[in-house]
Every structure is written in C-alpha cells, then in structure tokens.
C-alpha cells in the first residue's frame, strides 16, 4: 500500500558549495500524481544502515515550468542531505511521495497583488516556486523578496533570481541581507531579526498595502519576521509560514520508550486477528504502531482518525503489553479489560496478540 513512487534523477546541478539542485522525472505509472501546487514539497525515503530515513524538500519550480526539481542544502550531520550532495548521480532513482503542503494561496490572475517573501538560507526553495508561479499567472502582481544568508557564496539560486529580476522587470524586488559581509549600506548586513525587520519596514520595504507575506526559514527568523509584520500593521491571517523545508521530518521517528523496554530496532511478532483470520506480522519496536504494521501487511484493519480520537481502530490485546501514545477514546474500564487503540500502540513485549473481532 506504499504511496511512494520511484523518480529518476535526470540532472544534478551544483548550486553553491553546499547545495545541489536535483531534477527528477516521475515514472509513467505515477499518472499525474506529481502535478504540484506552488510552494509544495516532496518527501523522500532512503534506507541508511538499515534504518529508513524520510526527508522533505520543497519543489523549486513554477507550476508551468514542466519540470520537477528540488534544492538540497547540506546540513551538518544530515545523512540524507550529505548523501544527496556527495553521492547522488544522474540515472539514480529516489523514492518520493506525491507533492504535499499548504504554503501557497490561490492565484488571482486578474488582480494586482503585492506579495512579500522572507527567506532564510535554504528557505528560498519554496519561494522560487511561489515567485515564478505568481509573477507568471498574475501579470499585474509584484513580489518583494527579502533573503537572508551567511555570505554571498551561500546564496542559493543566485543567478536564477537575477534572471527572474530581468524577466519580470520592475515586478520582482530582491533585498539580500548578508550576515558576515559588510555591505555599502548597513541596512543590508546582519541577521534577519526583529530589529533588522523593523529597520527594513520603516525605510525600504512597505508593509502597508501588501496583500500576503510568505516566510520560510529557521524558527527564530520566522518568529521575528512575523512579529515585525504584525507590528507594522499586517493582519495575522495574511502571513503564511513554512518551517525550513529540510526540517520536515516527513514522518517523525517514533521515540523508544523512556524505560528502554521497547528498545528501538528490536522486533516484535504480532498476531493480528481480523474477521476470524489470524495473521502474524513482524514489526520494529518503538517505531511502528500495531495498526501501521497491519496496514503495511495489507491487512484491512479498521481505522479512521489515526490520532487516538475516534476508536475505530480499537482491538483487544489478548497477549503481551503495549504502550499507547495517546488515548482520547477509550474509557478506563475498557483499558482495564485490555482494549487498546491500535493506531497509538507500540509493543513492549516480543510477542503480542491483538484481536479486532472482540
């Protein structure tokens, strides 16, 4: 039931010393699943040393560009980003889920809108998509991008942004803020913090009358920018946030139980009884839930909310012990009788028997 598709790497372009731009082609079997909305991201998976890693990267292309590509910046200690920068080759395949994400607003081709964008480092990746798409689809709209980086050499998409400025003459303004380089004007050096934003908004970038602001970068930068925007009169509902693309874990790794009983990596054998039939599945302790393991084995186990709220995935634990992450649905007496929410349950014992029929 995997929702991953194998994408072929068709081009790898070195962008800065620490980043690459990877162009991908979806397989014919994906049937248009990779059509995307500006600002969306792809989630990749890859196994490193026996452990599956998932990482998400924003698509950095306009919706009508006819290509699918992502920018991957090397993160200190980041396995996936280091591997993509150092070892990935043209012709390799990468498993990816269909595009996801909500960092966009509907396009209004007839309107003249004024957009503000704030990017920190690789936070530029979804902005490229937003800028290209909006300026092409809305001929009367303008975009002001404030882009913070450590130094000139760290600026991702530097040339491409210059080209866009020339294509959309007068409609795209770019303000670079560089941390470690003294610019001619003090305003353009330093970090994109609250003080810098206040300074920019009173001297350079007009917040009043702007329709929408998009912010993507590290948490502290995003908070500073949004606080400054609000202080300069922007409505909170007009500000859109996207946490650093590379910070999307895709799917958070389940923590091992604090007492170490459900030590990560150890296997548990789970017998799952549904509609009178028993099947045995193996699952990694501390990682998968019983429901996930059942679904992965193509068992049609019932579920609805997957958040411990609705109790559709309720089953009776006949043998073994589990930890439940959250339980909003079961009453105490049900828990005492051995009922569990399988979407929230991680086995503690090496063997569990779970009965959906009881």
């Amino acid at each position: 039931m995997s929702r991953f598709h194998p994408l072929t790497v068709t081009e790898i372009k070195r962008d800065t010393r620490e980043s690459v731009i990877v162009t991908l082609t979806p397989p014919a079997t994906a049937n248009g699943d990779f059509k995307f909305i500006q600002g969306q991201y792809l989630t990749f998976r890859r196994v490193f040393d026996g452990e599956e890693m998932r990482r998400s990267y924003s698509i950095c292309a306009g919706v009508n560009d006819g290509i699918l590509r992502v920018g991957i910046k090397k993160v200190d200690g980041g396995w996936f980003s280091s591997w993509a920068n150092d070892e990935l080759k043209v012709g390799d395949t990468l498993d990816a889920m269909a595009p996801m994400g909500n960092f966009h607003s509907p396009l209004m081709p007839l309107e003249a809108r004024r957009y503000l964008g704030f990017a920190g480092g690789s936070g530029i990746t979804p902005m490229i998509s937003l800028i290209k798409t909006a300026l092409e689809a809305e001929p009367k709209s303008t975009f002001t991008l404030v882009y913070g980086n450590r130094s000139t050499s760290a600026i991702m998409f530097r040339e491409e942004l210059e080209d866009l400025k020339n294509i959309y003459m007068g409609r795209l303004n770019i303000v670079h803020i560089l941390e470690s380089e003294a610019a001619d004007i003090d305003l353009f050096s330093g970090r994109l913090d609250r003080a810098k934003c206040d300074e920019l908004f009173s001297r350079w970038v007009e917040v009043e009358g702007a329709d929408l602001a998009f912010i993507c970068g590290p948490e502290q930068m995003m908070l500073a920018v949004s606080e400054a925007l609000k202080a300069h009169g922007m409505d909170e509902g007009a500000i859109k946030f996207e946490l650093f693309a590379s910070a999307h874990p895709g799917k958070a790794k389940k923590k091992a139980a604090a007492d170490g009983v459900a030590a990560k990596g150890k296997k548990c054998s789970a017998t799952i009884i549904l509609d009178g039939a028993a099947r045995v599945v193996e699952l990694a302790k501390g990682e998968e839930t019983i429901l996930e393991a059942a679904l992965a084995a193509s068992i049609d186990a019932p579920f609805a909310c997957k958040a411990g709220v609705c109790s559709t995935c309720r089953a009776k634990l006949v043998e073994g012990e589990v930890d439940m992450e959250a339980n909003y649905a079961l009453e105490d007496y049900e828990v005492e009788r051995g009922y569990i929410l399988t979407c929230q349950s991680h086995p503690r014992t090496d063997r569990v028997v779970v009965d959906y029929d009881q």
Partner: protein
Amino acid sequence: MADEKEILDYLSRGGKFSAPGNAPARYRAELLRMMASFVDSEMAGAAGFADCINKGPGVKERIAASRIVLEKLDHAGRVLRIMGDFGADAARYQNIHPWADRIGRNDDIGVTRRGSDMRLNVFHYPISGWTDSVVMNVMMGAATVIQLSDMVNCSYQPLGFALRDILPRETRHAELGEEGLRALAARGDAERRQIDDSVNYWWPRIASTFGAPRSERAALLKRFGLRHRPNEELLEEWRNRMSISLSSALGSWGGNC
C-alpha cells in the same frame, strides 16, 4: 532538524505549521481532537436541523434551514479533508457515528463525552419543533462564531485558513436565526412564552460547550497555539451577545442573562 522542545517554544511564541510533518505527537493528537470535535458537531448539527426543514412555516424559512444544513455539511467536509492529511480515513470517518441520533429531551448527560463521538454535548439533545430550532440556532450559532473566532489564528495554518472561510458563513447562520426569531416573537405572547422556554432549555446546555474555567486542556491548547483566549472569557462574550440579540429580537427579554 528542530527538536521537540524548540518546536514547542516556536509554537508558544506564535509560530505556525503549514503541514503535518513537524507536528509532535501530543500536538497532533490535540489538533486532531479539536478537528474531530468540529467535524462531529457540524455533522450532528446538520443532521438535527435537517429534520426541522419541513417544520418551517414557509418557503423562506425552509430555504434558510436547508442552507444551514447544506453549509454545515460542507464545513464538516472541509475540515475532514485536513484530517485526511494526517492519515485519517475520511470515507470511513463520515459514517462512523449515527449523526441524527438524539437522547431524551430531559436526559442530563452533563459534559461527559458519549463514547468516541466527539460532537459537543449540546448536539446530543433533540430539537422539539420549529420555534425551538430557531432559538437553538440563534444561541448555538453565536457560541460557534465566538469559539471559531478563537481558532482562526491557530498554529495549524491549513485549519486556520479553512475556518476563516467558514466563519462568515456560520455568522450568517446565526443571523438567519435572529431574523427568524424576530418574526416568531412578533406573533404574540403565546409564541414568546414558547421562546422563553426554549431559551431556558438551551442556555445551560450551550454554556457548557465553552468548557470548564481554568481547564488544563485549554492551557495546553494555548501553549500549542491552537487556542488563544480562556474559556471563561469566551463564555462571558457569549452571555453578553445573547443578552443583546435576545432582547433586540424580543423587545424586552429579561431571562437568564
């Protein structure tokens, strides 16, 4: 990658998420619970009002009731789609509870949830006729508007933006109720007594949808940026709004407020 503590700090300072990926487990559970409560309430509310359409005195009233039913179902569908982004099975979810089921008019279920049906308890009580449905709609409509207003800037932006679109329509539902209430009140004293009875019936049941004062869950939701104002403040706003809208509809209503 940001760790959970940084994420919680980010949220408590007004940071937002635009996708499910970064949500820590506890946050995710509270958000899904909030959305489930909204979806179940809209589904159950629509199911209850659907039965009232034919009780409307004329075409205009039946259109108003139909519109409310239609739009509440649409609102449920919109938020259910967001739950789907978190892995919820929307097709199965929309039929997991018998949304039209009601308890007895005089049963008292307090504030305890009924099994895993997350509708607000007020939607378990039956509506007793056209006048009663109009009063319930005026009072619960105002409560819904106040409760949703506190969630439009919530830290999960897709939900916040969906609620931004939903809010003006829920506001209109409450206004339609007030128009209906004025028309009923103009019919005379017998009708007004019936209105009074309905107000007295619904008042405590709707007041309890605001939750307990100084609730631990409300404090947690505030830390997560999912809610902003305390329960008692929202309740106070509702009481004030009720005293204004009921007295303007009824001329001089001096009931429960």
